[in-house]
């Protein structure tokens, strides 16, 4: 049986950055498992620009961003296997894998990094009424068809959901000669980045209808029309506001779901808000030596933050392996549970990553990433150590579509030796 110190599940932006960082932290034996025929993951079909502003201070396209990491993986001689699908991971890190050449086989790992990314929510998850004709695609599927396969999925398009992929595809389909008639969004605010609304919709005069949803789909073989209606505060369609749009294509950009079947079946503790694993300051899951990063942990808006997060996961996985070699005893590697400080998502905050912090193992600085539950203007991000306020920052705007972060320092945490929980809240004054 093959054995590696670290096995990384997924060769997208998270897996690549984790591998590079683990290698730089001193681990030689690393294997990336990728089910697609090339490294880079979804970046390969994201041909638009805007990636890398944080990490490289320049605007790259998706393939260019991926290439920077793929080059490093190759230069560092990190092993990877393509066209290879992970079927199962056991609690003791025995990875069951399948591919065409070798069939079914197993790999023993000392540490595992989960970097499987996410997938799109589908029509089934929305319960849209109406017929089931051809012409209904997730935005990402349409993106693959246009950008990789060279097909245009349709000529007259309605888009449901204003997530970033939907916005990007509104522009892409327009440039390829399709007529994008409208983008409908159920919520009273867009789920995508503002700059994408300007560059992808406003630039091309595509209307965005907030608080609207699809209430009917017509067409038997091919989509013929969709009917939109306004929704009330509870998300219920308002009778009499229906408008029918003739179209041959409906794109859905209605959210992303971390792809955690492997994590769940191996028994990793999950977070019901993020649909990703619950992790500590080292991005380690409830199973020691199993780490998670990128969109499998929580859905990100910017790949730059995926890379940054994954680099931490890779480094921590490396430290796990190195510590284990040094001490050989699990009990000594994982300090007592009582040292864990819980991070609490208070008013206005949906979740935090990580969910717990062990001061003994945290680095000097730790970024806590979170999302807010609704749109706030002129509000404050606040951090409390138990009862005491330790941080307050004014934000002109906070929106669920934009991930936020605060930085905690070890120095500050050590000033509070009996701290039991850290609470993040949004306060309006």
């Amino acid at each position, binding site marked *: 049986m093959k054995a590696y110190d670290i096995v990384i599940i997924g060769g997208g932006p998270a897996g690549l950055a984790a591998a590079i960082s683990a290698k730089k932290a001193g681990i030689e034996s690393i294997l990336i498992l990728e089910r697609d025929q090339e490294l880079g993951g979804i970046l390969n079909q994201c*041909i638009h620009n805007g990636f890398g502003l944080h990490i490289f201070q320049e605007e790259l*396209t998706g393939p260019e961003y991926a290439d920077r990491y793929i080059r490093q993986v190759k230069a560092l001689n990190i092993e990877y296997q393509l066209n290879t699908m992970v079927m199962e991971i056991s609690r003791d890190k025995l990875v069951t894998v399948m591919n065409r050449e070798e069939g079914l086989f197993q790999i023993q790992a000392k540490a595992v990094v989960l970097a499987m990314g996410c997938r799109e929510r589908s029509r089934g998850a929305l319960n849209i009424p109406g017929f089931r004709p051809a012409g209904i695609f997730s935005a990402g599927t349409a993106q693959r068809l246009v950008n990789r396969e060279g097909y245009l999925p349709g000529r007259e398009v309605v888009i449901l959901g204003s997530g970033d992929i939907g916005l990007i595809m509104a522009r892409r389909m327009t440039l390829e000669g399709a007529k994008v008639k409208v983008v409908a969004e159920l919520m009273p605010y867009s789920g995508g980045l503002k700059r994408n609304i*300007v560059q992808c919709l406003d630039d091309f005069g595509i209307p965005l209808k907030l608080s609207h949803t699809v209430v009917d789909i017509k067409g038997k073989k091919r989509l013929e029309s969709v009917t939109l209606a306004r929704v009330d505060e509870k998300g219920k369609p308002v009778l009499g506001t229906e408008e029918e749009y003739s179209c041959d294509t409906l794109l859905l950009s209605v959210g992303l779901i971390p792809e955690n079947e492997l994590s769940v079946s191996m028994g990793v503790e999950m977070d019901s808000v993020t649909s990703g694993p619950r992790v500590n300051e080292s991005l380690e899951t409830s199973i020691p030596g199993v780490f998670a990063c990128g969109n499998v942990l929580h859905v990100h*808006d910017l790949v730059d933050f995926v890379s940054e997060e994954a680099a931490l996961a890779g480094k921590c996985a490396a430290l796990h392996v190195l510590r284990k070699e040094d001490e050989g005893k699990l009990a000594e590697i994982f300090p007592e549970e009582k040292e864990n400080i819980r991070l609490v998502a208070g008013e206005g905050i949906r979740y935090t990553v990580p969910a717990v912090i062990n001061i003994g193992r945290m680095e000097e600085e730790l970024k806590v990433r979170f999302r807010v539950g609704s749109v706030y203007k002129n509000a404050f991000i606040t951090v409390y150590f138990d009862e005491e306020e330790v941080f307050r920052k004014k934000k002109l705007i906070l929106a669920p579509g934009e991930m936020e972060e605060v930085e905690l320092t070890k120095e500050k945490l050590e000033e509070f030796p009996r701290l039991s929980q850290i609470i993040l809240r949004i306060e309006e004054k």
Partner: protein
Amino acid sequence: MREINLICINCPLGCPLVVEMEGKEVLKVTGNTCKRGEIYGRKEVTDPTRIVTSTVRVKGSKEKTVPVKTSKDIPKDKIFSCVTALKEVEVEAPIYMGDIILENVADTGINIIATKNVYSG
């Protein structure tokens, strides 16, 4: 004098800008929270530009397309002539990132370059 409302696209903050203009001259930009917002506001009303990304067809490879971009931003009103020009282009693999795919696209003086390696075979 006329006022033009814009949303700044420099960063996720998305500041609502108001650009005051007299004829073709920008008098004032307000609503921005940083210098970049003012620069964007001025440029957007006088000389709006965008980077354009698209794909062109490839022969002689497993891949069917190669992604491309304008090497610099081009005038906004040239976006459609740029993508129309690309429809006619077909290239032969191998293609390497940065290779020039089309020179002086739509008379902008800007080249179209490949953004991915596409190998032959």
